[in-house]
């Protein structure tokens, strides 16, 4: 009953019930167990002879340049390029969809959110199918080479394609964040300015930019953090030209028996990302002083694009299609071709439904005919569902504690801590969890190789999203509703069932689906946690790709992509629940 009261009290904004202290304590314990202790454990690993030696090797040894400094420079370059491009691209799209009379804007809006549901490695693999040059032999070359179009080396491998693949994935975040800020710009203000004869540039500069600046900075910072921590894109597109980032170096070190060196690099990654998010927070605070113009303005009057309407619509539609439909088609086509990147190769269904044939890929059957793949699909879905539920449960404790504390130092600290995983690379969370939960803790057995460790890492990584959905759910419920119910004599369970839950549910479901999709499509987080007995689709796709079984890799990737995108579309009613501005 006490827990129930706590839940109810927490969900209804502002009715302190006894137990705030317990809830707050619980929230701190949850965050400590998920994030703080495992990370601290990595740092502790470094305070040992082997650890200190690794620190010296990585920072000052003869490997330092290639282990740390160059990968660090590459990581930064990618981070900045991706952040800037995502804010520009996402910002323009957000402006077009929310503020203008762009034709087809609903479709463009739905598609613009989808890349976030598509795994980075899917984009990276699709890139190789199209752009690979003959550096890995003519047979491994992509479609362009086969069509006789020369591909410059810098476009085939290395920093440029890595950055482009990440932009294609992450601009969706920038789009969503900036669009939700833009809809708070009173369109009556812009309409008034337009009537008064202000130019479009002036309207943008004087009214729109001040309102959205904080969201531009936040989106840029988040894209930066995601880009610097990405593993799969540089792993796939960087290796042939020895282009490394901190993430690929950390993975290589941990994988080949120098885990301490990997931990040093992971620590560098976390500190780097943290510094930039802190910097962004400072910038944002400055930006916010301009943000007072934002009004709950009317929804009338979209900016007329005039003769630019259709050219811009075509450009926007091409962009969103090129990052969603195109990679899907490329992977699908490759998965039914006897030679992955060769458009003239024979088509075959072997990689999907073929029986084992010793002449193909060492006798591996098509993925739908492969018990291991079927098992991997079940494990992946199971882990995704379990993580979704567990993340929401953890987020309820944290989110409700934040709500109950109603500001103040403790609430602020909790909020900061809950969002901490956003700036920790998935690879680092995986390494931290395996370091801490992979060994027996007192009487508790090791969780290594169990679904539990995947779920723990998943909850840790997705906590910010889950907490956000709980906070949003709380904000949805006006306290007066529950008050009136209570006054009219409704019992607490009835209030919960009739008012609180129905109102909170849509946001909670949205949060659940976001966590689920992130788990299903994520590779970075699980690459270190994976065991053969616990196969996951993303790892299998990555392994196939590194083993040279491209078509199998692409077929599995298409499955992941479909599961993620369909789950997102189904849960959001074709994306509209996630983007209320698409309704009008």
């Amino acid at each position, binding site marked *: 009953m006490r827990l129930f009261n706590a839940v109810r009290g927490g969900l209804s904004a502002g009715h302190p019930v006894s137990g705030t202290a317990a809830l707050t304590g619980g929230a701190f314990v949850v965050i400590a167990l998920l994030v703080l202790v495992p990370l601290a454990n990595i740092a502790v690993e470094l305070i040992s002879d082997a650890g200190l030696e690794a620190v010296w090797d990585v920072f000052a040894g003869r490997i330092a340049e290639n282990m740390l400094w160059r990968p660090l420079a590459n990581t930064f370059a990618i981070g900045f390029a991706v952040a800037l491009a995502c804010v520009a691209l996402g910002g323009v799209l957000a402006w077009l969809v929310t503020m203008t009379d762009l034709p087809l804007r609903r479709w463009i809006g739905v598609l613009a959110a989808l890349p976030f549901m598509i795994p980075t490695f899917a984009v990276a693999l699709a890139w190789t199918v199209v752009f690979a040059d003959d550096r890995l032999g003519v047979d491994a070359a992509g479609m362009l080479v086969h069509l006789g179009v020369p591909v410059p080396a810098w476009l085939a491998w290395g920093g440029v394609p890595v950055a482009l693949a990440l932009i294609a994935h992450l601009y969706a975040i920038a789009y969503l964040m900036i669009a939700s800020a833009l809809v708070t710009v009173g369109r009556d203000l812009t309409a008034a300015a337009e009537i008064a004869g202000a130019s479009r540039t002036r309207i943008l500069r004087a009214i729109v930019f001040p309102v959205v600046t904080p969201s531009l900075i936040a989106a840029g910072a988040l894209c930066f953090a995601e880009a610097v921590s990405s593993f799969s894109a540089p792993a796939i597109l960087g290796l042939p030209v020895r282009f490394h980032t901190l993430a690929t170096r950390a993975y290589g070190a941990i*994988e080949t028996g120098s885990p301490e060196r990997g931990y040093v690099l992971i620590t560098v990654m976390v500190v780097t990302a943290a510094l930039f998010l802190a910097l962004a927070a400072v910038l944002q605070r400055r930006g916010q002083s301009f943000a007072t113009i934002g009004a709950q303005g009317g929804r009338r009057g979209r900016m007329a694009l005039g003769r630019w309407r259709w050219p811009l619509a075509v450009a926007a539609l091409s962009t969103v299609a090129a990052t969603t439909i195109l990679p899907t088609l490329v992977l699908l086509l490759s998965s039914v071709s006897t030679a992955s990147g060769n458009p003239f190769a024979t088509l075959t269904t072997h990689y999907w439904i073929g029986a084992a044939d010793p002449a193909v890929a060492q006798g591996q059957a098509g993925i739908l005919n492969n018990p291991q793949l079927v098992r991997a699909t079940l494990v992946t879905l199971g882990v995704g569902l379990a993580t979704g539920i567990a993340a929401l449960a953890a987020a309820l404790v944290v989110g409700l504690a934040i709500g109950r504390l109603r500001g103040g130092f403790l609430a602020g600290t909790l909020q900061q801590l809950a969002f901490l995983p956003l700036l920790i690379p998935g690879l680092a969370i995986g390494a931290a969890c395996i370091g801490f939960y992979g060994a027996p803790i007192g009487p508790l057995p090791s969780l290594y190789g169990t679904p539990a460790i995947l779920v723990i890492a998943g909850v840790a990584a997705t906590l910010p999203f889950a907490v956000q959905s709980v906070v949003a759910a709380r904000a949805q419920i006006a306290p007066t509703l529950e008050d009136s119910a209570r006054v009219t004599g409704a019992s607490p369970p009835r209030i919960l069932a009739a008012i609180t839950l129905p109102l909170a549910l849509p946001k909670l479901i949205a949060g659940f689906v976001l966590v689920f999709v992130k788990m299903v499509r994520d590779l970075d987080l699980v690459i270190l946690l994976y065991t053969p007995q616990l196969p996951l689709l993303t790892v299998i796709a990555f392994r196939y790709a590194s083993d040279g079984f491209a078509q199998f890799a692409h077929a599995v990737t298409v499955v992941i992509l479909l599961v993620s995108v369909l789950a997102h579309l189904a849960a959001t009613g074709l994306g509209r629940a996630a983007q209320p501005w698409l309704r009008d």
Partner: protein
Amino acid sequence: MITKPLRLASGRAWSLAPLCALLFAAPAAAETPADLVAAAEAEGQVVVYSFTSRVFRVETAFEEAYPGIDLVPFDISSTEQIARIQAELGAGIQSADVAYLADAPVVFEALVEPGHLLPFVPPGFAERIPDAFETPLLAHRLSTKVLMYNEEAHPDGPPVDNLWQLTTEDWTGRVIMVDPSTRGDYLDLLTEIVLQSDAMAAAYEAQFGAPITLDADIANAGEQFIKDLLDNDVVFVASTDDVNVAVGAVGQENPPIGFTSYSDRRDNAEEGWALQVANAVAPAPGIIYPAFLGVLSNAPHPNAAELLITFLMGDESDTGGPALAPFYVPGDYLTRTDLAPHPDAIPLDDFNAWRIAPQATAALRQDVADLVLSLQ
């Protein structure tokens, strides 16, 4: 606590055995003890970590011979197997039964000495396998990482006759190998080149007509070769299949050259490759090293594990029968002395690759790995 990820484990459908298995349906090794078979069948399953994808063909053959036992194959590189087995035993997790792996320098120290991986020599085979290949683990065959070229593009023999030619302009960006930072066998290859510095120095002089001069910070001819190779834009890839496709694919006018397994030549016809070993290259084409079979100390199916290892040593026919069919290929040298050498392979005695010395290699590996890292 050190743990590592694993490579793709993918099974194949067990329902459809290829027709050839029927053709090979020779009597399964007659001396396999009936009680071992019964005990293994009671266990019903055997889980294998294998560093070669040929484990999928073994699965077909094994399940043909023992329909009551499900072989669960996992294709995992030696490097990852070592890390995985250490982690799993450390965590007290029962996972695999049999490990089929190379990487002798690390395997002996990390897995055999602590007792994680136990030797098993099937009864009846001891006298047909040289003693050196029975301890500390049973060696199944000798595998290779050697220089391979495209024989379709070069019908008159290999386009190089000295390893140092790979450091010249002719081969800039056109020498392919798996990233030695991630794969122990390739690191062993580079380590052996450093250990064979005297031979490398002699080969240098034979190639360029002058004694080798070493760069600053470079200790010997082997290290100098590694540096020159990296300076010549050697291409690192993720798997040997990537090397095979790049080097071997038919229809190339000017194919690259690369280090891969001699035995991958077996797939030439099926995959459309023209791989051939450059055996005559000076001072040696690469390395030859043992691949081991061992039983994990906490194997959940110990009897099935022993049965599988017995099965993998082959039957009484000249070629070892269906179990050895995936391995009775040119480029693999089975340790059983009573088998007929493969007719199309270079006889072992004429094969010029260096045999690695596990202890010496183990002592130098990290140093060479760091050298490679420092040069990139």
